[in-house]
C-alpha cells in the first residue's frame, strides 16, 4: 500500500472516444474501422483480414479490366476507383443519436390580447441568421407599433408585435431579408394549417 498507484494508459478510439475494444457498440463502427486498423490492429484481427481481402479483390478487378480492354484502360481504372471509394452512409443506429431535423421555417401566429386588440407572434427568424433585436426594431418602426423580443416556453425566442399585421408582415419579411423565401413562412390557423406565406 506504500507504493504509488500508476494510472493505467487506455487507448481511446480517435473517432468515438470509447476504449478501443468498445468501438463496435459505438455510434458509428464504420468510421472507427479505418482508425482501428491503423492504431489497434490486434484488437480486431478480423478487420485486418477483411481489409486485405477487399484490397486483393480490387486489385484483381483492376487487372482484369485492364486486360480485357486495353483501349479503354483509362475508363476502366477510373471506374474501379469510384467503386473502391465507399460512400459514407450515414447510418442512424437506434442506440446512437438521431439528429432532429430543424426545418427552417418562420411561423406567424395571431393571439388575441383584449377583445379588440391582438398581437402577432413571429417565430423562427433566428434560424435564418437574423438578429432578433434588430428585427423587432425594424418591425416596430415600419408598422408604428410596439415590438419586443420575448422568450417563449422553450429556449426559443419570438418577436411579439402589437396589432394584427399578419398580411403585411409577409411582404415586409421577404423585402427586408431576401434570404427568407416566401414558401418557408407559415401561418397558424387553428393548429398548424400549413398555409404557406
Amino acid at each position, binding site marked *: *500500500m*506504500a*507504493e*504509488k*498507484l500508476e*494510472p*493505467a494508459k*487506455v487507448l481511446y478510439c480517435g473517432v*468515438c*472516444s*470509447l*476504449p478501443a*475494444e*468498445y468501438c463496435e*457498440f*459505438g*455510434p458509428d463502427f464504420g468510421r472507427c474501422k479505418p482508425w482501428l486498423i491503423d492504431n489497434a490492429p490486434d484488437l480486431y484481427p478480423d478487420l485486418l483480414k477483411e481489409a486485405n481481402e477487399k484490397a486483393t479483390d480490387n486489385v484483381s478487378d483492376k487487372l482484369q479490366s485492364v486486360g480485357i480492354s486495353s483501349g479503354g484502360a483509362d475508363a476502366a481504372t477510373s471506374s474501379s476507383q469510384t467503386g473502391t471509394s465507399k460512400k459514407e452512409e450515414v447510418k442512424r443506429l437506434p*442506440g446512437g443519436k438521431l439528429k432532429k431535423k430543424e426545418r427552417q421555417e418562420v411561423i406567424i401566429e395571431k393571439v388575441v390580447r383584449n377583445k379588440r386588440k391582438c398581437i402577432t407572434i413571429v417565430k423562427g427568424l433566428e434560424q435564418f441568421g437574423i438578429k432578433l433585436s434588430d428585427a423587432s426594431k425594424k418591425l416596430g418602426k415600419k408598422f408604428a407599433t410596439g415590438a419586443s423580443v420575448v422568450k417563449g416556453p422553450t429556449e426559443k425566442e419570438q418577436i411579439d408585435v402589437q396589432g394584427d399585421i399578419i398580411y403585411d408582415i409577409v411582404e415586409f419579411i421577404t423585402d427586408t431579408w431576401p434570404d427568407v423565401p416566401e414558401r418557408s413562412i407559415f401561418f397558424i390557423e387553428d393548429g398548424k394549417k400549413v398555409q404557406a406565406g
Partner: protein
Amino acid sequence: MFKKFSLEEISSQNQVKASVQRRIRQSIQEEYPGLETVLEDLLPKKSPLIVVKCPNHLTLVVVNNVPLFFCIRDGPYMPTLRLLHQYPNIMKRFQVDRGAIKFVFSGANIMCPGLTSPGGVLDEEVEAERPVAIYAEGKQHALAIGFTKMSAKDIKSINKGIGVDNMHYLNDGLWKMERLD
C-alpha cells in the same frame, strides 16, 4: 443517469472552502482505500476544488476543469469512468454477459439475470447500496459504474428484477464531457 448532460444542465458551480474540501477528501478516502496514495495528486490540498451542482440532487467534484467524482444526494462519491479506467482496481467488479452490453450502453439498469448467466461474474462480498464497477464479458475496461440495489447474495438467489442501477456508462453525457470549459 447521465443520458442527457451538457454545460447547460449545470445549475451552479462553487469553489468550496477548505473544511468542505477536507470532508470530501476524507469520504473519498474511506470509500476507496486503493486511491490513498494517489489522492494527493488527484485532489491536491492547495488546488481549488470546485463543486458543481446539477438538477436531480447531483453533485460533481471538479479539479482543474476535469470532473473526477460525482454523487447523488448524500450518497457515496463515485469516480467518473475516465478516472476508473486509469485506476481500475479501486472498486469491486461485476461482470455482465455480452448480450447486456448494448442495453447498458443506452443507460439501462442491470438486471439480475445478466449477472447470473454464464457470461456474468458476481463478487460475493458486495452488499446492497454500494458503488460497483461494471465490466463486460470479454472486455478489459470498465463499461459502467453502478449502484447495487441488492446484495450479491440476493442477486444470486432471487435472480429477478434490477440488480444494479446504472449510474454512469460509456459515451453518456458525463463521459463526453472530458473537461468543463
